[in-house]
């Protein structure tokens, strides 16, 4: 088992090193970066902030990992966040009790995911096209729900999901961590992980082996929609309102990026949900660092691009056996010298 852990750690090296480097740069730019203090029973500090702000993308990345591992992609998660945020806000304003609001919102996310899943699995649409439909239509649906205005609310129980805390830890972090643990457990304690990888690598051969690949795809997309709805609730609760046009805008790209930075190939197959979450944290650490450093935010996007290029290159370098190559070269040179 310890051998396996060493292997896993080696594989995660590029991401871990990048994260450490970014955290260190953040520290240089803002010496108080690692300070954490307890105030009014809640943890505060830049590190906590990274995790708190990163929580929605972590949640999205969990669902997106399963989709990408099945050799698909879900472009609609940002729009689904807008739909769920709009629904949560509108229902709360209309006076529905919190449990009903949450259930309805998560249910709506599941439905959105099912819609994507049906298009992909049963109508054999290409995932990028199938989910593009809801990416566009979703914002329209969200606007219909909010009737074109930004719906604000002041219901403390819902706001709690965005800004509350439990045992000192902010709710978004708790929710993301809980979902992460549940998702990893389910995927690795059941056969789902293996079966998802199998259809992602070779769907035809998987069907020949007796996998119900259509049903599995449906479940994967539904789960991704569920994650998007959860992220949508957190964002809406955080800003105490629903903005159909801007909630979750472009977050589908951050989620895809997090998965790719985490090492899951866009061609499907092997995946790691934990690494995707790490990818999401790396992205957020960069965002926070640039804001703290006082750089103009325009640099954010360019720096992000640079860091991502470095991470992806180092990944392909190590997966192509680059380190082994260098080590072997170095050793043979060393031997020659003796």
């Amino acid at each position, binding site marked *: 088992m310890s051998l396996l852990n060493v292997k896993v750690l080696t594989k995660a090296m590029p991401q871990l090193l990048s994260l450490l480097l970014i955290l260190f740069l953040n520290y240089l730019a803002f010496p108080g970066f690692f300070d954490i203090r307890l105030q009014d029973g809640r943890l505060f500090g830049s590190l906590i902030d990274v995790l708190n702000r990163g929580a929605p993308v972590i949640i999205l990345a969990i669902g997106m990992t399963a989709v990408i591992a099945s050799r698909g992609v879900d472009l609609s998660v940002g729009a689904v966040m807008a739909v769920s945020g709009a629904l949560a806000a509108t229902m709360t304003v209309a006076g529905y009790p919190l449990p009903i609001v949450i259930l309805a919102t998560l249910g709506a996310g599941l439905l959105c995911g099912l819609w994507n899943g049906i298009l992909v699995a049963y109508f054999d649409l290409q995932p990028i096209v199938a989910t593009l439909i809801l990416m566009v239509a979703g914002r329209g649906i969200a606007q219909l729900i909010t009737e074109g205005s930004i719906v604000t609310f002041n219901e403390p129980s819902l706001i709690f999901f965005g800004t509350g805390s439990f045992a000192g830890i902010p709710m978004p972090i708790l929710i993301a961590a809980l979902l992460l643990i549940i998702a990893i457990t389910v995927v690795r304690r059941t056969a789902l992980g293996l079966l998802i990888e199998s259809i992602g690598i070779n769907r035809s*051969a998987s069907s*020949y082996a007796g*996998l119900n690949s259509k049903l599995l795809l449906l479940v994967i997309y539904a789960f991704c929609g569920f994650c998007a709805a959860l992220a949508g609730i957190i964002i809406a609760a955080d800003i105490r309102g629903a903005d159909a046009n801007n909630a979750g805008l472009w977050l589908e790209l951050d989620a895809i990026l997090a998965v790719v930075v985490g090492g899951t190939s866009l061609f499907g197959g092997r995946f790691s949900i934990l690494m995707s979450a790490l990818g999401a944290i790396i992205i957020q650490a960069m965002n926070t660092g640039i804001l703290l450093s006082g750089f103009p935010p325009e640099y954010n996007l360019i720096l992000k691009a640079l860091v991502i290029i470095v991470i992806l290159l180092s990944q392909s370098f190590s997966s192509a056996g680059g380190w082994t190559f260098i080590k072997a070269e170095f050793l043979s040179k060393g031997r020659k010298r003796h």
Partner: protein
Amino acid sequence: MTDNPSLLAVENINKSFIGFKALDSVDFTVRGGEIHALLGENGAGKSTLIKVLTGVHQPDSGLIKIDGQAVNVRDTQHAQNLGIGTVYQEVNLLPNMSVADNLFIGRQPMRFGFVNRKLMEQNARKLLAQYDLHLDVASDLSRYSVAVQQLVAIARAVDMSGRVLILDEPTASLDRHETEILFAILRQLRARGFGIVFITHFLDQVYEICDRVTVLRNGKLAGSALTAELPKIELVSLMLGRTLAVATHDTHRDRPAPEIRQFSFKGVGRSRSIAPFDLDIGEGEVVGIAGLLGSGRTETAKVLFGIDAADTGQIHIDGNPVLIRTPQEAISYGFGLCPEDRKSDGIIGDLSVRENICLALQAHMGWFDRLSTKQQVILADKFVKAFDIRTTDIEKPVKFLSGGNQQKVILARWLATNPRLLILDEPTRGIDVGAHAEIIALINQLCDDGMALLVISSEIDEIVAYSSRVVVLRDRSHCGELSGEDIIPSNIMRMIAAEPEGVSA
């Protein structure tokens, strides 16, 4: 017509891909005014030869001559300029553009920098009239049937090249009437002095229209002859690589016929795929399926296993009527299938040997009842040892194994599910000699252990070696059955070659 000088000739062509000789000293000559059939089973080298002729691949050595002049075909464009036109099986036209556009794309008549549509459509009508085709050339190509699209593709190829026409399985998706129209046009082109290379799997069509036949086998020239001088049975033996003289059955193993045949398929078929057939298989017997490529071998397997579910017929297992509409249902009745195309339908390349072996069993157990890693390792170790699967360890991705070892992994995947009926589609294709013998021994042993097996193979010797009964397929229907002493290669080949009633060679 056969005395005409050669129009296109290749001499001593060699072409290798990594570690694999696709063409081995092949000679091939097409004369003007003849239709020349190019035959061979899958992987015989037909497509490679065509690709060399049309400049897609460069030969490693050898000469290509046009009108006796050695030429170097640089690319497909160059081949066209040299007069070699090709129509591929999947028509490579643009269905969303007009017929005229398709005929003249890339060489439209221009006026003032714009396409002169009027002139182009006029030319298109004139061109198609030569073939007695009167279409609305301004309408989209997709409005017309596949047959007409094929004819448009031929018209375009003829107009652009004008000497040699290569047709890769042009009749594969045509019905009888459409084939007649195509043949009429081919005869007309032959009369105009074209050299036509005709690739097909339908032997009847060879005798109907071709003047000369060339057969390739395993990248080598198996033979070339005038159609009129080559009896069909000899053509089949050329394709399968054996002659009647050496056909013996001393390797055949006699088994007692099972008392009960537990698996019964009555009138099972699927339209446009395989004609309804009856098939009974009992535990402890091997039923061999013989037939040429395209005769419905793989289609039979797919219908039985529920991949392309049957649309007619009844299936009984142990006397109970059952429905098989998906592989999952087939597996639940104890079926297993090792598919013909190992790479696309068999292995999950990036998964480890262990995971590949456990996949079917895991899929059958469901999503939530996971085989623990320990159980998986035990299972994989067992089969790796039993089948002598050569791999450095069971965690190696299966794509790094050789073909024979991959085949054993897929066999192991099914045996892990304890199947009652195992369907093997070309289990020995593309694997080395050693693994070949091991797999045949395994088939015999599984049968002795009481499994029911259905084995599809294009290797007649092999079928003879392990089959208790042999079903022969021709033209997408089951046309005969042999058992006991009758299972000898010559009988199988006669049944494959037999002509359908009412058509004379």
